[in-house]
């Protein structure tokens, strides 16, 4: 492991500053304009009343956007600069945790990977990242109440970590000693109740239920549904056709049986993974691999999945790599597939890499690779 020295710290600081500066003015994806308009709404009203208007994300995500916009107003930053500045702060927080827990090399790697999501394209997944990393650390140190609290906070920022919460709860329950066994969820429950009460339960419910019934059959995520989308367009199933030039485009609405088939497959695999984890002795290795499998199952098999949702797979793969639970080649493949999702659609606008029959073949091949990788991840968990 590389030692921490002032030299390493300075190199890390300058490389990450260069990445931040390089991407600071990049306008990002269309999500960014949503975030900016939310920030404006929240500034106009207040974070609590304003949230009722938005109610698309869980409440703490927009709350962070509001805090960033409020702070930025004091120092006269533009709205985009506010957003990028907040993203950079959370990226640094996550990288410094990785530095403390793993190594300087790990911190540099983590910052470089997540900067493609945050600094470059403006996704706010990094807002919950420090909580996930600290939550996993808390579980390692036998602090189940703190771990559950941190994961609850992460879920109240964006809904994706909710997929992990049942596994975290089971592990925390197994770790807790007798009197604590029934008390450890209390801080997390109290925190969640306070946040939901502050932001109006109906709005929070609306945000979570909206995420659960996302109308996209296939978003821009290379997964099983994208593979199915390619086949449906090729064979003109359910009235689907390629876009002009032979490009595969996402499917937003299909007859309900298609969603039911996809969701059933997801739930079977997800529950099987959960049961497998529950029935066996709990170890840190099994937990990390079960979390990775759960997130891979969600990304690969569920509907309503978008290009940035592989973020958590990347993070869990990173943790598994540096805890020596995952091989380097497996992590590299996870990183390649996760990043290809966002970079192919957004990093090379003039090259238009997903267009035409070649682009279609490329995206289908990547989707098949993601399915294979998901199967390998499930197998790793089962074999652990």
């Amino acid at each position, binding site marked *: 492991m590389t030692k921490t020295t002032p030299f390493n710290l300075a190199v890390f600081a300058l*490389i990450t500053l260069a990445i931040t500066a390089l991407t600071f003015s990049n306008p990002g994806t269309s999500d960014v304009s949503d975030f900016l308009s939310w920030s404006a709404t929240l500034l106009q009203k207040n974070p609590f009343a304003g949230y009722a208007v938005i109610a698309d994300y869980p409440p703490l995500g927009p709350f962070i956007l509001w805090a960033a916009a409020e702070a930025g107003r004091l120092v006269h930053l533009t709205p985009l600069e506010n957003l990028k500045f907040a993203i950079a702060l959370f990226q640094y927080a996550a990288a410094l945790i990785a530095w403390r827990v793993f190594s300087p090399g790990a911190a540099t790697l983590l910052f470089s990977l997540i900067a493609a999501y945050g600094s470059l394209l403006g996704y706010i997944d990094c807002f919950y990242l420090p909580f996930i990393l600290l939550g996993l650390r808390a579980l390692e140190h036998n602090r189940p109440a703190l771990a559950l609290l941190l994961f609850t906070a992460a879920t109240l920022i964006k809904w994706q970590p909710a997929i992990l919460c049942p596994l975290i709860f089971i592990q925390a329950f197994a770790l807790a000693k007798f009197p604590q066994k029934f008390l450890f969820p209390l801080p997390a429950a109290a925190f969640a109740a306070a946040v939901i009460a502050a932001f109006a339960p109906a709005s929070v419910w609306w945000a979570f239920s909206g995420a659960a019934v996302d109308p996209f059959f296939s978003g821009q995520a290379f997964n099983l549904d994208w593979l199915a989308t390619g086949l449906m367009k090729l064979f003109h199933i359910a009235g689907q056709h390629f876009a002009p030039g032979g490009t595969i485009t996402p499917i937003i609405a299909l007859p309900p049986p298609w969603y039911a088939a996809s969701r059933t497959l997801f739930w079977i695999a997800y529950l099987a993974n959960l049961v497998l984890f529950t029935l066996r002795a709990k170890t840190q290795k099994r937990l990390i691999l079960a979390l990775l499998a759960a997130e891979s199952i969600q990304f690969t098999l569920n509907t309503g999945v978008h290009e940035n949702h592989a973020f958590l797979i990347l993070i869990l793969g990173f943790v598994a790599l540096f805890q020596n639970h995952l091989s380097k080649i497996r992590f590299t493949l996870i990183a390649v597939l996760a990043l290809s999702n966002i970079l192919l659609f957004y990093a090379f606008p003039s090259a238009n890499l997903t267009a035409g029959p070649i682009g279609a073949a490329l995206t289908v091949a990547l989707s098949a690779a993601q399915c294979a990788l998901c199967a390998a991840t499930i197998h790793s968990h089962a074999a652990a």
Partner: protein
Amino acid sequence: MIPLRAAIVLLIAAALIIAFANAPGTFDDYAFIAWAKFLLRPGPFAGYAQLSRVTDLDYPPIGITIMWATIKLAHHFSWPELQSFKIPLILTSLAAPAIAYTRTRAPEQALILLLIITPFGLILGYTDVTYLPFLLAAFYLAERELFWAAGLSLALCAFIKWQPIIFAPVFLIAAWRQATSPLPFAKLAAPTTLFVIAILLLYHPATVIHVLFTATSDNEFSAQGVNLAWLLSALFEYLHLGGLTFQPSGAITLLTTPSPAAAVNIAMTALRYLFYAVFLAHLALYAIGPKSQAAFLISATACAAAQFTFNTGVHENHFFVTLIAAFAAWQSKALDNFAFAACAAIALLNILVFYGFGDGFNFSNLFKIDSSIFLALAELLTYALILRQQLQTCLAARPLGRISEAQSATSRATSEN
């Protein structure tokens, strides 16, 4: 049979090739294609001399011949020129990870190399990738002390692009340390010498030397290489020396000599001498250090890093040679993970800061501070990291060496008594 993991690397390589075969690259690519088309009529040997007379040609002969061959093929089969230009880049981008894989059988290392070189070769069309398999082969052959073959491979690299010539002194010292006297050394050097003479004769010695002279007498003080000269450029423009100033966007301008600012002209000379001094110091460190693979690879990395950091006329893709030496050193654990990650980040960010992924980034800054300044500072510190590792590798063994000598002398004395 190909192992499953190697097959996965191959599949990813195929996906990258499909994705980026049409990437537009930098404007250099179109200059190369124009040169290659110029050679179609006279042929590569006579044409090389003619081309050097009508242009500021600063590329070595084999590199130009490879370009000629690809454009010739393109015209013969009516293939698009840009895609054909990428054929050697694709082939060498596949060969290099394969060679890296044969050394350690670690597919993740091959995959990391493939991913790192993709922005250089497939996406932006830099021809540095063309010599990469031969450069890796040169390092691996030298590690096995097959210096006659390593020298040949390195000479081939240098005739494809000049940059790998920076490693020649390190290879010479390593070969001399193996040979220890003139005759065995001459035997080791003979194949390379004959090869160099053959190439000179084939392409006309005066022309090759003239082109090499053009390449080494670049009048750019700061090109797009984020190094010490780049930082000095920013400083001169900040101070408005000789009327120098930032571009209207706030971006740093590329400075050339002779400059209206005397400081630039003085700094150009000073930096050149500083580079020579530092480079010689790295060679001296290697020469006095232990005869080991680690010392050889870290010294090669340090020499290349010194060239990028202190020399003038350095461009954005010139960190590539340092990156490759660093990769070989990292493979053999002569360089730690963090230093290699820093080298990879510097190499990739240096091209991204100017070109993006072929679409170009607009001038990027953080609160009006040009992002390339952070990068240039990071590059200087990365050089310092490499220097520190060379010092540790080459000097740390010396006191131990003395102690072990003293111990063996004591034990000899004891046994004699």
